[in-house]
């Protein structure tokens, strides 16, 4: 499987009469997109706004971030199971509007959505302060129940992202607009992968997906990940949106759809592929809540790694607490099967940093990368503009009663900031012991 990513660099968003890209500026026909999203009758209202890096803007509560993509080649569309059909993706050519994101927000699933500050100290902690953001403020109808509201908002975000890329597709195909970069990713058949680079260690990636449910869900080709057995996925499929976030867990370490599309572990393994290692596969597994599920999934994921005959693997977690048990099981089962592991996690060491950071532990977990202590407090100064619903800060995880002050500033744990301690290792944040 070969996938070409044709990336157009977006440096500015603006509203205008027709949606399209020119000289790095994406113009969005607001009415058209709003009407398109309102075709879902479960939505009572949709409004669009834009936010750029460096602006005095706070967006909350943010549910998901999605990078606009669509297929340039024939075959199934991106986001299979939602936008595309349920057939495979990950081959051909995909258009990417790079440097921007669609952020969904509004009256959503209150407790566990995130904050994105476009400037100030909070901006350092979220990757989405660096993207030009089209903010989709969604208002589900009164009669829509909580879990359905999540689904409504999830699908609206995917539709908006796909719409934006699709509206730029003709210009690319007719060569009126050229991609800024084209990058090719190859995921060869196993027969070939196994014989490639005989002198390099075979490495896999065990990619844990949040599936604690309800509202702690991830979808693979439209299937709720709690219902899967661990399975193989081509890294190129993830780039075409085969994995979708349906999460309302703490914002700091939930994997938004954007980071699934741009998985940094996959990126880094590709970067070393053929030079220092032979990247032979991605194994997705889940984080279900029952012990039997945890045992089954960890054993099955490690079994797949053994079937691939890998020497080592990176294991990334999503969420914290209960999934720490899955992380630890994946770790010791792999290590005892002779597969070396590095774990990517984050920490809940308390506001003073002195508690144990994980809820489970094993001596085999001797190589651990951390994305930082999510309990660290931060004061977010007032912003000139707030998109969304500021009083929600009081109940966003990591915020607490009284966290929103009269002047509009907020005192929160970085847990409340979208992507702050991302466990795919998306950011540079980490922690050490003093």
């Amino acid at each position, binding site marked *: 499987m070969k996938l070409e990513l044709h990336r157009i660099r977006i440096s500015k968003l603006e509203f205008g009469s027709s949606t399209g890209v020119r000289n790095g500026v994406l113009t969005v026909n607001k009415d058209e997109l709003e009407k398109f999203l309102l075709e879902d009758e479960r939505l009572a209202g949709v409004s669009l706004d834009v936010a750029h890096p460096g602006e005095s803007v706070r967006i909350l509560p943010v549910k998901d971030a999605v990078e606009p993509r669509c297929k340039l080649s024939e075959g199934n569309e991106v986001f299979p199971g939602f936008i595309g059909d349920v057939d495979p993706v990950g081959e051909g050519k995909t258009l990417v509007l790079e440097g921007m994101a669609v952020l969904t927000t509004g009256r959503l699933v209150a407790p566990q959505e995130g904050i994105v500050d476009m400037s100030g100290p909070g901006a350092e902690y979220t990757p989405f302060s660096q993207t030009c953001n089209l903010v989709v403020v969604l208002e589900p109808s009164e009669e829509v129940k909580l879990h359905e509201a999540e689904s409504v908002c999830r699908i609206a975000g995917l539709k908006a992202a796909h719409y934006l890329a699709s509206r730029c597709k003709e210009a690319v195909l007719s060569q009126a607009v050229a991609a800024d970069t084209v990058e090719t990713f190859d995921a060869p058949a196993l027969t070939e992968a196994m014989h490639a680079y005989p002198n390099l260690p075979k490495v896999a990636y065990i990619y844990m997906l949040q599936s604690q449910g309800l*509202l702690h869900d991830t979808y693979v080709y439209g299937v709720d990940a709690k219902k899967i057995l661990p399975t193989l996925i081509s890294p190129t499929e993830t780039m075409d949106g085969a994995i979708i976030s349906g999460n309302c867990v703490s914002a700091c370490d939930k994997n938004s759809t954007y980071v699934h599309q741009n998985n940094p572990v996959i990126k880094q393994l590709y970067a070393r592929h053929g030079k220092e290692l032979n990247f032979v596969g991605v194994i997705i597994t889940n984080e279900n809540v029952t012990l039997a599920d945890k045992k089954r999934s960890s054993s099955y994921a490690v079994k797949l790694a053994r079937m691939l005959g890998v020497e080592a693997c990176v294991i990334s977690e999503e969420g914290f607490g209960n999934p720490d048990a899955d992380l630890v099981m994946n770790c010791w089962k792999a290590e005892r099967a002779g597969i070396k592991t590095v774990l990517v996690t984050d920490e809940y060491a*308390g506001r*003073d940093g002195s508690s144990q950071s994980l809820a489970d532990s094993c001596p085999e977990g001797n190589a651990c990368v951390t994305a930082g202590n999510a309990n660290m407090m931060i004061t977010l100064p007032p912003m000139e503009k707030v998109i969304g619903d500021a009083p929600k800060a009081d109940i966003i995880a990591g915020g607490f009663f009284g966290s929103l002050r009269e002047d509009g500033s907020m005192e929160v744990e970085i847990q409340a900031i979208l992507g702050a301690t991302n466990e795919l290792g998306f950011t540079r944040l980490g922690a050490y012991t003093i």
Partner: protein
Amino acid sequence: MAYRVVHYINQFFAGIGGEDKADHELEVREGVVGPGLALANALKGEAEIVATIICGDNFAAMHSEQVCAAVENACKQYQADLLLAGPAFNAGRYGTACGMVSSFVQKNVGIPAVTAMYKENPGVDIYKKDLYIVETGDSARGMGTAVPAMAKLALALLKGEQPSKEHGYIERGVRVNTFYDTCGAERAVTMLLKKIKGEPFTTEYPMPVFDRVEPRPAVKDMKSATIALVTSGGIVPKGNPDHIAASSAQNYGEYSLSGINDLTADKHQTAHGGYDQTYANQDADRVLPVDVLRDLEKEGVIGKLHEMWYATVGNGTSVANARRFGQEIGQKLKDAQVQAVILTST
């Protein structure tokens, strides 16, 4: 201009006397006293010891509030930029006093403090989380190495530098966030390659070691047992009167079950932010099964349901907070002669 430092020492190092003078009342003298002279030299003119606080070890232990307040006042009066305390070596009361005043001054004056002790000094375990404590030998014979190390660490803190292991302080066990040069994924793959090759690597987080609690033996006589309900599922009276946070709880609530046979949507809710609240808010008995326990009480299966329930939110709550809640709730239940507890999570 040189930084201003206030130095805290005990009666022995001030040359006043040993155990017989341990009740010596706190006094403040301008300039250096005792080990302050060597410290002042080691500060190499970059910082000046402007005043010395002298206090008997027993006096400090017996009058802790008064001593802390006096040290706070002295630091303010002499416009100190930093407090030095000790070195205390293996003197237990002295080490504890050094830790106490250092920790107090950091919190209440907002200036850094540096102290120094032997690793087994009881002051270490109490205060290492809050303080940089330079590791010393177990007696004053270690003065020669303790003094320059304290001065070096003090100057680093005064200049706003992050101390490192080279400063020789006792590991505080506190996790601090930092931005690395590369993203986590890149660090992970680099670490994996080192592990594959058998090269040395350093984990960013050494795995924790946990307390394991042996379950108590089964209750033999349920018919006369008082059973309590405790939950980390966040079930609280409507309105969440104790403001228990949706995540990272800092407190727990204690509520009366008197006259309640069933939890209802108009009077109860969950404060928990980690799950879909719909079903818990519809019927909080789903998380805290009061209705079923009342049935069992009526049927005589259990003696009675304890009159109070305890609730917190187990969502990103730190182990330290959880341990404190557990110890306090456990003590209350023990005092109330409860025989068994049903702990519900989510």
